[in-house]
């Protein structure tokens, strides 16, 4: 295996037993990390340790297990808060990015959005940062406007600058899950703030890969998913500025989010508990905290540099293939490790199937970004996406796999 210079991949590979699996006779090359990442043993063991030794309901029970579970859960919240430079009470645990954004839709937008207000999106949003806004816009008579994407796959910032003034909400992804583009969300949020526009940043594809600092970005809300950053399914984060969380309506009604319940009404608990109704996913939160510890041990800057090296090599390697078209920025700068492409004459699903026969897992489809697919006039794309355990050799395997595709569909 080629040595990469920023992460000792050989040294961490035994943390991910699944990566030694054989698929159709070949060692698995897992290049579907933008969909979900694999989980290191450390994370699995942290979750197991909770269930085997400390499992109880949090907040509600004063017995020893209950106290331990509460400390672990609130400790996980502190870990997440420090990871993105937020306050603990600004961290709401959710199921994932999708639920986080829907929470803002239900608890902020349903309350404050008014008829003819404009929600400004971008053409490179994931469905989970589009559909919630469509739903609330229809309900409240608000309008959607989209910032375009240029040929290179970059946001048309001049359109954002033009349209921000008349808007009420800016919903913008930090990194595109299709193009890999890193958007300057700091600049976008600063423009928004000057115009009194609420900002919702989708960090699903950034938090796992590059440093995310909510104070520096200056956003009102920011959402990401644990499962895309080494943690188990079912846990995610909504960061919200404290003052905004406080003025919001609650989301789900139920246990733990209330202070007192009477027959006809109830009063709400403090933030962030107001938004965490019912039994929380303590195991998931503990897993996410351990995943962050794993990321911090390697260093998020090292992860970023490592992935940039792999991405650069991938862009160079694939661009040698005739009839292969790469979408998005053609160099690794200002980009995360997501490389989408199409091969002339071969449908993405056929490409994915042939690669899978060779042990290579990529994603094919619309990547939950149909507006962007329509922008490029394709129904689907192939996508290879990297994480800290991928190597240059994985890219070579992808290259060889694509050559086999071309043998069939050439």
């Amino acid at each position, binding site marked *: 295996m080629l040595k990469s210079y920023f992460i000792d991949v050989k040294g961490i590979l035994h943390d991910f037993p699944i990566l030694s699996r054989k698929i159709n006779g070949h060692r698995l090359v897992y290049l579907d990390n933008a969909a979900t990442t694999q989980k290191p043993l450390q994370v699995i063991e942290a979750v197991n340790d909770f269930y085997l030794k400390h499992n109880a309901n949090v907040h509600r029970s004063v017995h020893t297990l209950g106290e331990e579970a509460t400390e672990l859960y609130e400790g996980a919240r502190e870990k997440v808060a420090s990871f993105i430079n937020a306050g603990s009470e600004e961290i709401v645990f959710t199921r994932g990015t999708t639920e986080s954004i829907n929470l803002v839709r239900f608890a902020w937008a349903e309350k404050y959005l008014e008829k003819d207000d404009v929600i400004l999106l971008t053409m490179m949003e994931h469905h989970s940062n589009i559909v919630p806004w469509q739903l609330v816009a229809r309900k409240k008579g608000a309008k959607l406007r989209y910032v375009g994407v240029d040929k290179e796959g970059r946001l048309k910032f001049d359109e954002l600058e033009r349209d921000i003034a008349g808007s009420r909400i800016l919903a913008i992804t930090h990194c595109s899950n299709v193009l890999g583009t890193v958007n300057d969300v700091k600049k976008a949020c600063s423009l928004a703030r000057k115009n009194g526009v609420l900002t919702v940043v989708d960090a699903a594809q950034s938090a796992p890969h590059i440093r995310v600092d909510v104070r520096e970005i200056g956003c009102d809300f920011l959402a990401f998913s644990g499962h895309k950053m080494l943690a188990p399914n079912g846990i995610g984060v909504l960061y919200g500025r404290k003052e905004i969380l406080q003025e919001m309506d609650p989301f789900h009604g139920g246990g733990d989010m209330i202070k007192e319940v009477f027959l006809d009404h109830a009063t709400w608990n403090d933030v962030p508990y107001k938004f965490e109704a019912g039994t929380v996913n303590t195991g998931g939160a503990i897993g996410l905290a351990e995943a962050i510890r794993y990321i911090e041990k390697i260093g998020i800057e090292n992860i970023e540099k490592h992935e940039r090296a792999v991405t650069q090599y991938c862009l160079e390697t694939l661009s040698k293939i005739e009839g292969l078209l790469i979408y998005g920025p053609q160099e690794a700068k200002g980009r995360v490790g997501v490389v989408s492409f199409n091969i002339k004459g*071969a449908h993405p699903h056929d490409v994915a199937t*042939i690669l899978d026969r060779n042990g290579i897992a990529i994603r094919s489809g619309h990547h939950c970004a149909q507006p962007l697919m329509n922008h490029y006039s394709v129904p*689907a794309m192939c996508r290879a996406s990297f994480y800290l355990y991928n190597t240059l050799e994985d890219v070579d395997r992808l290259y060889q796999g694509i050559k086999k595709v071309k043998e069939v569909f050439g």
Partner: protein
Amino acid sequence: MSSADIYKEIILDYYRNPRNFGKMEKFDSSARDSNPLCGDEIEMQVKFEGSKISEVRFVGRGCAISQASASMLTELAKGKDVEWVKNLSKDDILKMLGNPDLGPSRIKCALLGMKVLKQAVYSYAASKTEV
């Protein structure tokens, strides 16, 4: 080659040169469906003589499996009775394709054509009973 089990020459041939591709001016029934995972799309138009299919054509876009499967099915269906279509099963389609080794999501591609043909036939049958 390890992909040979799915992408047999015959499937690739039907993908590259789809038989019965195109639209008819006059037909008795038509149907259209898509596969949200792949974005595969198939539309079929059917002419009947009594309870028999006299002609069937399709248009569509998508992966080799879905397009070849739809095209092969149009050939098979010609001259068959409405009942034959109603009784078509997953296994029939897989046999038609030469029993490729398809996972559960790719099977949906293979079955899209059958789904559309059945819709066309059922809506034709429904229109007849109404008369």
